[in-house]
């Protein structure tokens, strides 16, 4: 059974593309066949974060227009042979997307991959709506701040009403990733607490990724942080990938450094 998972956020700059790259790579590391698709037509970034920008020859739009075959456009990741990447067109814009063509493309991808992960564009316009249209599940990426929460709340509303599943009376399964959490700031009450975010969005929590300066550097190097065994953010992405692969991994709330053993245990057993 393959599934199509859309990664959405509403607001830009919260770490959607970084999350897509790391989660995709994490799933591939678990031995699953996975493809990440950049749906941000006209503003692709996923190729850079995966370190594959110089390998892009054909893109998704050319495949949909049958100017190129799917296997010509798919790029195999250097980091893991289970991971493939389908780039967005950089020269066209969102208006080229058509529902029938997307449906066919995703059908072809489903045949080949267990996990089809779509990196949605920021915002809630047509490009976003096309990304979520045929999704089975969605990963909602938020930062612990009010504007991000409100924008993703809006995106979830559209997900529920505009997706094929939602229109047919079903529901797209939703997972929440809280990204760039600074435990020190949460403790001081300067960031929204996890419980508050979950209450507002009423979505199941998939994982919490702590703020980690290494993430930006890793993105610039094209070497996603999930590959870095030392990184806390990388560890968080590895746990998230395992959960998506069906493993039961307890949630770990990022703790401020000076937290004692009891607090850590409490976090483990949440």
């Amino acid at each position, binding site marked *: 059974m393959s599934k199509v998972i859309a990664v959405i956020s509403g607001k830009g700059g919260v770490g959607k593309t970084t999350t897509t790259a790391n989660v995709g790579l994490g799933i591939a590391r678990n031995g699953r066949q996975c493809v990440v698709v950049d749906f941000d037509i006209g503003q692709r970034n996923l190729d850079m974060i995966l370190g594959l920008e110089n390998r892009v020859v054909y893109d998704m739009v050319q495949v949909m227009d049958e100017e190129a075959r799917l296997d010509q456009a798919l790029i195999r990741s250097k980091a893991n042979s289970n991971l493939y990447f389908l780039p967005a067109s950089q020269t066209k814009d969102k208006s080229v997307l058509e529902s029938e063509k997307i449906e066919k493309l995703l059908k072809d991808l489903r045949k080949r991959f267990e996990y089809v992960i779509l990196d949605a564009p920021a915002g809630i316009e047509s490009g976003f709506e096309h990304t979520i249209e045929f999704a089975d599940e969605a990963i909602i990426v938020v930062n612990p701040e*009010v504007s991000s*929460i*409100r*924008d993703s*709340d*809006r995106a*979830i*509303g*559209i997900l*529920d*009403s*505009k997706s094929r599943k939602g*229109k047919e009376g079903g529901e797209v399964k939703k997972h929440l990733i809280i990204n760039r959490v600074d435990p020190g700031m949460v403790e001081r009450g300067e960031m929204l607490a996890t419980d508050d975010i979950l*209450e*507002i969005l*009423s979505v199941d929590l998939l994982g919490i990724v702590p703020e980690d300066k290494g993430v930006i550097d890793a993105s610039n190097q094209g070497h996603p942080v999930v590959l870095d065994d030392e990184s806390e953010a990388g560890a968080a992405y590895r746990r998230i990938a395992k959960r998506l692969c069906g493993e039961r991994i307890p949630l770990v709330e990022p703790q401020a450094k000076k937290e004692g053993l009891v607090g850590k245990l409490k976090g483990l057993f949440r």
Partner: protein
Amino acid sequence: MKCSQYNVKVFEIGIEDPGTFLKFLEANRALLGQHLLSIHGEMTEEIYAFLESNGLHYVLNMTLPQAKRGVQRFRMLRPEDEAQTAQESAASEGEKSKAEETDSLPKELAEVRDWLRKKRGESTEKELQKEETKTLEEGVSASDESLSGQVEKDEEFPEAPPLKIVRQALRSGQSVRYDGSLLLTERINSGAQVAALGSVIALGPVEGNISSTGECVIVPPIRRGTLLFHGRTIENDALIHPLNKITFVDDQVVIQPINKKEFH
């Protein structure tokens, strides 16, 4: 000129058979005492005597300027009436308004209100078609057909649309507009909108915007949302109780605590 507004409940009733009518009056004396009776039909001596002896307030065969929907309207009072009104009980306020019915000023006001309501009603219909969430649509467009059934059930408010209950959280960008009263059991998120011509009762956390022109609004404390009651902004700082009931009393906004148990 000094003006003030207040609500009057009107009970409209026709005389078909004087005997039945008298029985009805007797049975519902307590309830009718709180209303201005608008009686249509032929008065008999007995009915007249009954009304007078029971101190009921009434008008006879008078067409009241009535809004198409909704129960309560505001009336203008002339300054000279104001002193009297203050001394009178809530029940007798009904009688005062009777005298005002024929004045041109309130009539005009009522017409404007009628028009506004109609206009708002129309735009509501249009917006509903655009409404994104299917589940929200259900019941929002309470049609006129469903109202006719309501008349018999709810004699006190003959033309009020039925209470609409929203059992699902409102997300940012979603809105519920309704020309009756609304009960929202779940949260209203930041960026969501609730607008009712009737009362609004919100039981979940409110971070979105609520506007009501009904009899009352019942809300928990609001941190981030805004509450408009008859066009007036209710300051969030004033909502200090676990549940706050906001009403108009003599043109003053009154906020009272309300016990959650009252709902169960």
